[in-house]
């Protein structure tokens, strides 16, 4: 009886340790998105995590994988983010310039009020598709830790390049254009 109790206690302790390890593994897997940028920087093309999010610019939702066949500039932003304000007009120009060549710019507004995001879009005259992720549920999958961050995806939905921070300098904008050219050429 005593031995059984001891075994039960040991089993419970081992079970607790296994549970904690599983939680740690789950947490690390959730942060795997941080690797997307690193893999893209090494010249690999990791697959971009799929998502379906509510649209801000019209009714309905947008699923990323539905855009296969077109290159995508995926921009994570929020209306309260100061550098996003400077970046938004450039993204709108990119959308207008490359739209006919098969590029879609998708703005993912996260950790923000819908009303503020729509006001931001009106203020900067944004006409590209905008989706809403208020709780920021898809951010860990992409490894997004701040705003803005931008990912360029090829026609197969794979990450060609990632940009942490605003694409506001001439050098960064040139790098984005080169990434878009690669994504369109895939």
């Amino acid at each position, binding site marked *: 009886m*005593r031995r059984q*109790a*001891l075994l*039960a*206690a040991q089993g*419970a*302790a081992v079970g*607790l340790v296994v549970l904690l390890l599983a939680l740690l593994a789950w947490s690390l897997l959730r942060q795997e998105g941080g690797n997307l940028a690193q893999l893209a920087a090494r010249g690999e093309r990791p697959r971009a995590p799929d998502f379906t999010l509510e649209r801000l610019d019209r009714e309905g939702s947008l699923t990323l994988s539905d855009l296969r066949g077109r290159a995508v500039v995926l921009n994570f932003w*929020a209306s*309260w*983010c*100061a550098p996003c304000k400077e970046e938004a007009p450039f993204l709108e120009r990119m959308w207008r310039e490359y739209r006919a060549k098969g590029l879609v710019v998708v703005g993912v507004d996260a*950790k*923000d*009020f*819908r009303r*503020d995001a729509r006001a931001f879009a009106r203020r900067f005259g944004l006409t590209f598709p905008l989706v809403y992720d*208020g*709780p*920021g*549920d898809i951010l860990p999958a992409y490894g997004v830790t701040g705003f803005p961050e931008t990912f360029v995806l090829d026609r197969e939905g794979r990450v060609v390049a990632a940009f942490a921070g605003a694409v506001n300098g001439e050098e960064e904008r040139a790098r984005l254009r080169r990434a878009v050219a690669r994504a369109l050429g895939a």
Partner: protein
Amino acid sequence: MSCLAAALAALAAALAPAAAAAPGGERPSAADLEAQLVCPVCETTLDQSSSPAAERMKAFIRERIAAGDSEQEIKDKLVREFGPGVLARPPEGGFGLLAWLLPLAALAGGAAAVALLVRAWARARPREPAAPLDAEAERRVDEELARFEG
């Protein structure tokens, strides 16, 4: 009798400001709400954060209080925007109930495991009585003690 009347008057006077401050129900306090809601960017309560996102949420709370929303209505609106993670205190129902029950279950399980282990260790080996000293050892102890005391 006059003492009772005076006490009642004092009680009424003490309650009067509270009644005046809450006409037709409880008016939520921005400070209370800021302590109960989490900034989605820095993940601390709003009263501990001055990030742009937190400041925007604080402004929203003040705006809704001025518009006459109840505390629950304001929380519901913020949950619709930012998800249930915006609540510092998880909901006491549905999936949120797990956040309350799991720590209690872990505590109870830990206490049970400790109790079982302590019982098992206590019963593991009864303490054997110390072996009596032989004559030689007893003589040496007596000598040492005598020297110590002398």
